[in-house]
């Protein structure tokens, strides 16, 4: 009897140690931490869900730790769009009752991760009428809003919680009467050469220093590339010590860090978006197979790097603007691009290059820095969610604000890749104009 109990104790001990080891091993080795996943993760986060420390930077500290992690990745973006509801609006004690109802000081109040089953658009896990908590009396100052459902504030193309850069009332008024097409419909032109201070002379074919490591075809491609033009020789990328300017050894497939040693802005954007966020975390590159949006099965084996879209020896940047995208992505929107009015523009004769519309025109737009230099935004997610982010930086280069708001609020038009007119009409501009006509005619030199 006593011997039987003893064996039970031993069995219990072995099972306990085994169980503890099962959970402790991933913590020690920092691998296979999926055992701790509490539920499916959202949007881009699924790419880094096994890197628990990306968000849970400290096992202690609760909300503050998570808040730091959110701000670390998304803080700059919120500042750039002049966040309509920054934390500072809620820390004043006068809002203590509001904070009790909805603690908007913390991202995780509205965006709970690992709860995909309760996650709505924009990663919001609250019931979508949350605006009511602070704005239930909105109709007192905006009679046009009387009776509107609070679930419609952010879902109807009128407001966003964070980014209202293209939706605020005075902006609506300023652009209310623009025609559907701009007189000159084109995006901002490239001007990098004006800022180039390249001290190196361009290189000729006989100056390629790859020896027998490359074919004549690759050498010919390189000769006509911007790399040769900028004096970047084969060793500039393929040498083992290329990032420090050396010429020793030979690397057949240079990594993204080699590109980054010259193209730092582009790399920064790449690492911030879904294409490069795994690399930014020190993980293996994202693969097409791991994506949770429609992709082509035939491309499943591909992984994301600079070379996924850019052929490094070629001068062609057009491949990256359309072919590279449609080679992997298989959503209805992407599949319909070649039949879209945007794609058909490229077939017109006598077209200015800045009038051509590609995938990159909208999803990797050209942006102008404070010094005037135009660069391509390589974070292709920067203006995707909410899609109203595209209005100012992309759509309004060619279209009116009114058309842009309506088109982006119509999922069917987006699926058709903007073939045909929007079937929805957002009334925000109408409301703003009507209110302005009633109340906006007081004399003031400041208005």
């Amino acid at each position, binding site marked *: 009897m006593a011997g039987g109990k003893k064996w039970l104790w031993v069995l219990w001990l072995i099972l306990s140690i085994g169980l503890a080891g099962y959970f402790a091993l991933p913590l020690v080795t920092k691998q296979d931490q999926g055992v701790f996943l509490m539920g499916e993760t959202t949007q881009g986060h699924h790419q880094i869900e096994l890197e628990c420390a990306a968000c849970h930077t400290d096992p202690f500290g609760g909300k503050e730790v998570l808040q730091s992690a959110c701000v670390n990745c998304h803080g700059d973006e919120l500042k750039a769009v002049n966040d309509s509801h920054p934390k500072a609006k809620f820390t*004043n004690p*006068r809002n203590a009752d509001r904070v009790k109802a909805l603690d908007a000081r913390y991202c995780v109040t509205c965006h709970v991760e690992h709860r995909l089953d309760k996650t709505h658009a924009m990663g919001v896990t609250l019931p979508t009428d949350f605006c009511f908590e602070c704005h239930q009396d909105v109709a007192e100052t905006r009679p046009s809003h009387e009776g509107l459902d609070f679930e419609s504030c952010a879902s109807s193309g009128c407001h966003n919680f964070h980014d209202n850069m293209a939706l605020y009332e005075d902006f609506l008024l300023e652009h209310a009467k623009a025609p559907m097409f701009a007189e000159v419909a084109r995006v901002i032109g490239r001007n990098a050469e004006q800022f180039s201070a390249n001290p190196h002379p361009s290189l000729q074919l006989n100056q390629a220093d790859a020896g027998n490591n490359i074919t004549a075809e690759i050498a010919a491609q390189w000769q006509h590339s911007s790399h040769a033009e900028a004096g970047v020789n084969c060793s500039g990328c393929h040498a083992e010590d290329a990032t420090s300017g050396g010429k020793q050894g030979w690397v057949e497939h240079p990594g993204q860090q080699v590109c980054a040693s010259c193209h730092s802005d582009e790399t920064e954007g790449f690492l911030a978006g879904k294409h490069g966020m795994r690399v930014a975390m020190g993980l293996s590159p994202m693969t097409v197979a791991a994506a949770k949006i429609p992709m082509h099965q035939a491309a499943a084996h591909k992984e994301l790097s600079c070379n996924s879209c850019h052929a490094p020896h070629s001068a062609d940047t057009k491949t990256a603007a359309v072919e590279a995208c449609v080679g992997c992505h298989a959503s209805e929107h992407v599949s319909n691009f070649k039949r879209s009015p945007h794609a058909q523009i490229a077939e017109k004769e006598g077209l200015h290059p800045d009038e051509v519309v590609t995938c990159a025109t909208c999803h990797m737009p050209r942006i102008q820095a404070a010094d005037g230099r135009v660069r391509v935004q390589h974070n292709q997610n920067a203006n995707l969610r909410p899609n109203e982010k595209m209005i100012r930086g992309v759509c309004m280069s060619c279209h009116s604000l009114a058309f842009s708001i309506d088109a982006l609020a119509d999922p069917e038009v987006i699926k058709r890749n903007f073939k045909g007119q929007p079937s929805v009409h957002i009334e925000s501009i109408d409301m703003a104009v009507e209110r302005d006509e009633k109340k906006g005619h007081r004399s003031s*030199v400041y208005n």
Partner: protein
Amino acid sequence: MKKVMTIISAAVVLTACGGSESAGGIAPKVYTDSLFAVMKADRTNYTKLIIKRLGPAGSGSISPEEHWQDKNNGAPLPAQMFRFGAEAVAEMTSDFSYSLQSIWPVNSQNAPRTEVEKIGLQFIVDNPGENYYGEEELGGVNYFTAVYPDVAVAAPCVDCHNGHKDSPKTDFQLGDVMGGVVVRVPL
């Protein structure tokens, strides 16, 4: 004897600490009055020295605009500058907080919300030149709350508020109390 001396020494030290704190402590009213003095000075200077000079009546090279970030030559309005200061302070400390409120707010979110705000903002309008002091509990914390008059010190204040389509009051005059600065200190 040694034990007795230790107790006496400890008592002396504790008394000294308490006495020091009592003698050197700043009364909440003095604290908030001092904070307001700095705020008012900066706010008045920004309005008179910057906005008044660079606005339509001034050089015109910089334009005071509500949506100043969207204009190449836009400059924040005095009330916005004040709010940015309050938000920046909130990121640095929770030892005090302040905000600009009014019973005639351009932004309805800046209307009085707590009882002390409601009473205080009305008091400073009814009693020009006087401040209002009170205490209140918000979120389980007791606060000393001071409400100071925010007076129209320059023509742009009056002109902008009277002309703004969201302003509930359109007949402000120079020298009027347009709202109040609410300063809170946790007790």
